[in-house]
């Protein structure tokens, strides 16, 4: 228990958990640059439906992705209480619109159960595992896949 907050020693990752729609997700906290409230974005013409637009993050132009729509959970209606998680994936900065950020948990790699193959739903593609505990089921996002998909689509578009 002493090591709970020391992921390096326990071989654990810290994960940030957040809710999208009615479901709970998590991602590696090291990818997260910052969390900020919703501000108006500039719509990108001819972009995929889940790319809400771009916003100004201290001088950088950052695309904002509606995670709910991307995961096939229906479009999220952006509101002031929604949250944007700014993640740095490789050299690419992307913002994900989520319903709310809830907690930071630490989990060892063995805590993550691989996702059983249940058919190629959008969510299935972007979730690489599940952390099940007594109170909740956390879906671990495959961020690399998400980022790749965003770039790919923008190139097609």
């Amino acid at each position: 228990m002493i090591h709970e907050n020391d992921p390096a020693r326990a071989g654990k990752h810290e994960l940030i958990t957040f809710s999208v729609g009615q479901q709970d997700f998590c991602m590696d906290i090291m990818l997260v640059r910052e969390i900020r409230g919703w501000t108006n974005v500039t719509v990108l013409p001819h972009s995929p439906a889940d790319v809400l637009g771009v916003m100004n993050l201290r001088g950088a132009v950052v695309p904002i992705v509606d995670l709910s729509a991307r995961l096939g959970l229906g479009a999220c209606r952006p509101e002031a209480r929604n949250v944007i998680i700014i993640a740095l994936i490789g050299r690419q900065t992307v913002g994900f619109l989520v319903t709310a950020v809830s907690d930071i948990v630490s989990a060892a790699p063995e805590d993550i159960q691989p996702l059983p193959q249940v058919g190629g739903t959008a969510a299935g593609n972007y979730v690489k595992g599940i952390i099940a505990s007594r109170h909740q089921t956390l879906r671990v996002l495959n961020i690399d896949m998400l980022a790749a998909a965003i770039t790919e689509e923008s190139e097609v578009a």
Partner: protein
Amino acid sequence: MRSGKLHLTPEILRVFYRAADRLADLVALGADDEMWDEPALRRQIDEILALSCAAEPAAASPASPDDSGDAAADGDLLAQFTPTALDFSFVPPGQEAAAFRRHRITFAPTAELFANGHEPVHLFRELAALGELNVEAQLDAAAAWDADAPAIVWTLTLDTAQTRTEIQEIFEFAEPFAEIRIEEDGHDPAGTESGTSGSDALAPERAPAPGAMADIASNDPVPIDMQPLSTGPAGPARGTEQVDAPQGAADRAQPDKAVKTGSRATVRVDLELVDALINMVGELVITQSVMNQSIVEAGLASDRRMASTLEEFRTLTRQIQEGVMAIRAQSVKPLFQRMGRIVRETAQIAEKNVRFVTEGEDTEVDRTVIERLVDPLTHILRNAIDHGLEHAERRRAAGKDPTGTVTLSAAHRSGRVVIEVKDDGGGVDRDKVLASAIAKGLVPANANLSPAEIDRLLFTPGFSTASKVTNLSGRGVGMDVVNNEIRSLGGRVAIISEPGQGTTISISLPLTLAVLDGMIVDVGGQTMVVPISAIVETIRPQPSQLHWIGPEARMISVRDLMIPVIDLAAVFDYAGGSGALEREGVLLLVENDRGEQRALAVDRIHDQRQVVIKSLESNYGHVPYVAAATILGDGQIALIVDLDEITQGTPALPTPPQARKSA
């Protein structure tokens, strides 16, 4: 030659360049402590001697590089020159330049040197690292000691394998504040004081020829004056510059460009620091306009003091921005010099006589732009010589000077830099181009193209006019690569060809990659930026001016010219909706690089201002019809319209991978 007695012929030039190359090789070899190819060198020296002797039989001090391959041929040619004694007192340093040499350095610091925090000891220490150093201080003047006026003059003797350049680099920062004199002792460590009268005058021109012309000539030491150091690789090549093209070899033989600024003090800064500064200034500009806007919105702008302070702040910000941009700007001269070399090499391979003319070398362009221009320009120049210029016989037959001319020019034109490569060759062979394009399936066989459109085909991917693969072109990299490269710099390439008269390829580039003068407009409820450079005029159209052509297309007649109207909101598929013209919108008359005009319908013009360009590609990707993004005064992002893409008709939109948002 410099005194105009020996006229420059292409043969001699070539010889000189070969000699300059040899010198550069020698220096490189020497630096690596390797042996040079003695026989080859000897041969070349003989050739040089042959030439100069032929040129100036009376002159006792011959020292001009040449090549015997041409020497025989040159003999006749040179015999025509008046054999006057040429004051050519060329005193090259010995061949040992590359090996250990003794440098005698006189170092007389001024008060400023110390005031600027320099300390001679550090300099000496660095020198000592180069070789064996002996320091002597002359204390004569020190008797009349004055704390504020340094009186000690040092004489340093340094035995080193390093070139003079290296020594100069050590003194680079101290140079403006001290009198520095470096003398090389060559073979003769004793004869230092001489600094012969004749060679003094010539010194600046001959200076950077370490290991030059080898062991032909005298043992005299060569005094080098730090201040007016030239960049010429060797005397003769330098001489060519006045007659003909700037020499590209300079870059090779004389890497230390910084010194050439003469007495002006310079600072070397890491490029990243400058870039970081530019980014921050960009932020400052944005913050400034955010502040401006919020003050106006808060109704405080009417306060007179506030208004004037605000105005002052704005001017300052702008000035800072311009100043920072100027740091990155560089003259195109080094680039042009490099190109001069490429032209000569190409001409030699293509066996064509080419006169290379450069204009506007002092034009300043952003550093990044210069770097990225090298490949496209090389390609264009090679094309111009290989394909553009005809062979001498054909030129003669056409009644033209058998020597072709290729002009490379740079100029500032309405906020952009225009670089032109002009040849006086045969122009684009349009029949051949069209036939080739049809054969390659790039255009339909029955296509009816205008001459300009045919010229434009050269830039189509997969097109290459070279009927045979030569050393120079036809390696699969076509003009389309040039086009792409220039476009990625925010520039455009245009081609103008006149059959029998030649071809001009002009590259128009933004001054910097970071800022753009834009018109802020409202398009279907979204704010967008249209580059002002392309806007010809703005029109509030009268209904009578507008004409429907079919159900979709619309034209506006401006001074009896019918111009297609493009509804921007429709192009971008904005929910605010098309039909700006129905809502009393405004038309922006824009012109693309092919001189075609289009009228863009927008809802409203807000403002006109300089915007900082932010890439969309780095975090997202390409957006159709959008060149980049920028951040407006209110912190919101606005998209910059890509006029080229919009005016190029309507390229087919790719089918979306999934349902498009109806935004």
